[in-house]
């Protein structure tokens, strides 16, 4: 029995997949804590799709895909910021507009050069077939993100909570926001490799949303979110060995199950607790 459970670890590719997923899952979960608060959850999805043209171009020019992805990610984030500043369009419309434009350009490039990119690898991701070269990229990106986030998470909270106040106490608000979107683009690139463009959205939304139901303090929210993100990602990759299933699908399913558990059973905001409290108040 034990032997069977440990079996995945005897395969080098499985072992790598598990810890790389845990790392990427943790970084995405960290970012998800912020995105969810601002109602920017769809931003992660938008970025993931916007990255496609960059990846396609990078392959064409024989550059590391991360470089191309990263620059289109930043470009997309900047376009959104500029359209937002110059028009009165709402955020959802802007995100939709920018990301479909970028995605369309990406598809166009791929369709003109069909052999250039394996588009399915971008959209679905496949951590089990990832090359060592790509792993190196993912790991470097993840560690840089984690490092910056650990240093500056409090400043980012201040900016996200009350931008004007952050400015009034002399924080470099614009620099912090640009940093955040740079990290988000970078993390999205990393997540593409593991779960693919379609499921990146879950990685940068679900852990934060779950943690939000469990605590009123931002520091704890981040801790819970990162733990959930890492554990579910590792577990999903691990379980994919036995079920012979797509790891991305498993990871996101696990995250959703935990979210549902929190939704019903969370100590303060869970459905059951809220019902009980109200019943008690009414009964008293």
């Amino acid at each position, binding site marked *: 029995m034990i032997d069977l459970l440990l079996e995945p670890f005897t395969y080098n590719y499985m072992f790598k997949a598990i810890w790389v997923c845990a790392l990427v899952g943790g970084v995405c979960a960290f970012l998800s804590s912020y995105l969810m608060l601002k109602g920017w959850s769809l931003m992660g999805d938008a970025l993931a799709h916007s990255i496609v043209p960059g990846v396609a171009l990078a392959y064409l020019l024989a550059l590391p895909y991360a470089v191309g992805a990263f620059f289109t990610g930043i470009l997309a984030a900047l376009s959104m910021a500029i359209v937002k500043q110059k028009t009165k369009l709402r955020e959802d419309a802007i995100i939709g507009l920018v990301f479909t434009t970028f995605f369309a350009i990406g598809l166009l490039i791929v369709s003109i050069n069909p052999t250039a990119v394996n588009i399915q690898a971008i959209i679905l991701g496949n951590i089990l077939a990832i090359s060592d070269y790509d792993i190196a990229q993912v790991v470097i990106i993840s560690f840089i993100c984690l490092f910056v986030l650990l240093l500056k998470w409090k400043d980012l909270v201040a900016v996200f*909570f009350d931008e004007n*106040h952050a*400015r009034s106490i002399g924080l470099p608000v614009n620099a912090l926001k640009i940093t955040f979107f740079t990290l988000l683009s970078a993390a999205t690139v990393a997540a593409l490799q593991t779960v693919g463009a379609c499921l990146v959205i879950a990685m940068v939304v679900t852990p934060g949303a779950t943690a939000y139901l469990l605590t009123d303090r931002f520091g704890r929210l981040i801790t819970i979110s990162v733990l959930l993100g890492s554990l579910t990602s590792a577990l999903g990759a691990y379980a994919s060995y036995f079920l012979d299933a797509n790891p991305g699908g498993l990871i996101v399913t696990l995250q959703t199950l935990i979210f549902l558990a929190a939704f019903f059973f969370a100590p303060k905001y869970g459905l059951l607790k809220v019902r009980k409290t109200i019943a008690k108040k009414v009964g008293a």
Partner: protein
Amino acid sequence: MSNPIVTIKNLSVTYPNGHHALEDVSVNLKSGSICGLVGVNGAGKSTLFKAMMGFVKPTAGNVSIDGMSVRNALKKNLVSYVPQTEEVDWDFPVLVEDVVMMGRYGHMGFLRRPSKTDHDAVAQALERVNMSEYKKRQIGELSGGQRKRIFVARALAQGGNIILLDEPFTGVDIKTEDSLIDLFQSLVAEGRLILVATHNLGSVPSFCDEVILINKTLLAYGSVETTFTQDNLSKAFGGMLRHHQLIGADLHDDEDARGVTVLTDDERPLVLYGEEGGKKIVRTPKRKKADKT
């Protein structure tokens, strides 16, 4: 304590939509005084604050604080600002004490690890606004007046020598208003400069030392005694105020020509008493100390 002076020189602000909100406003503010900023809705009070904080760019003129540019003054945490409406997400997962602690970030190191001084400053600030018992509440779980006090506490924790408050009395009850006024007076006694925007006329003479009357342009600026007069107020408010007057024979049985004028905009009325129907203020109603229970 340093002696911060705010110098506003020929300040004009035009919004991107072409609206001229402020034109050629010049004032010099000294520390150790409470200054009321009074004007009708839309007079440009909030705009003046935003220009002082560098949130809107002046189209002409400039603001300097303690001889520095606004940017540098903010970096040195000289100015605390309590906006009219907080544009924050009230469901944000932060506790009251976390919000007040954010006022201290400018004093902390690179990692923003609070020291004992920071914790003490937060506790003290909460104490001064009477909100200590709420420190573990999530910020959304407070009433409007309590939320306001939390943001005042954040400004206090920041410890700026210049405090800008944009309509701090809107939505708070009289008792809270009185305790806020007591608080402002004790802050000024510590040598700070407090600038309070308000359209609540009645309380201005009782707690302000100076007053700025604006309506797009500067109408009058000076000490309350000489500036807060019926003439100036009529200029500032036009026909927007309810106006009751009892003069000479209506008020007295003797030859006394003095009169009483009551100006009100539905909040605390302003009562003027004196010669020429109260055109000059002879006496302003002094505020009784709010009882702290």
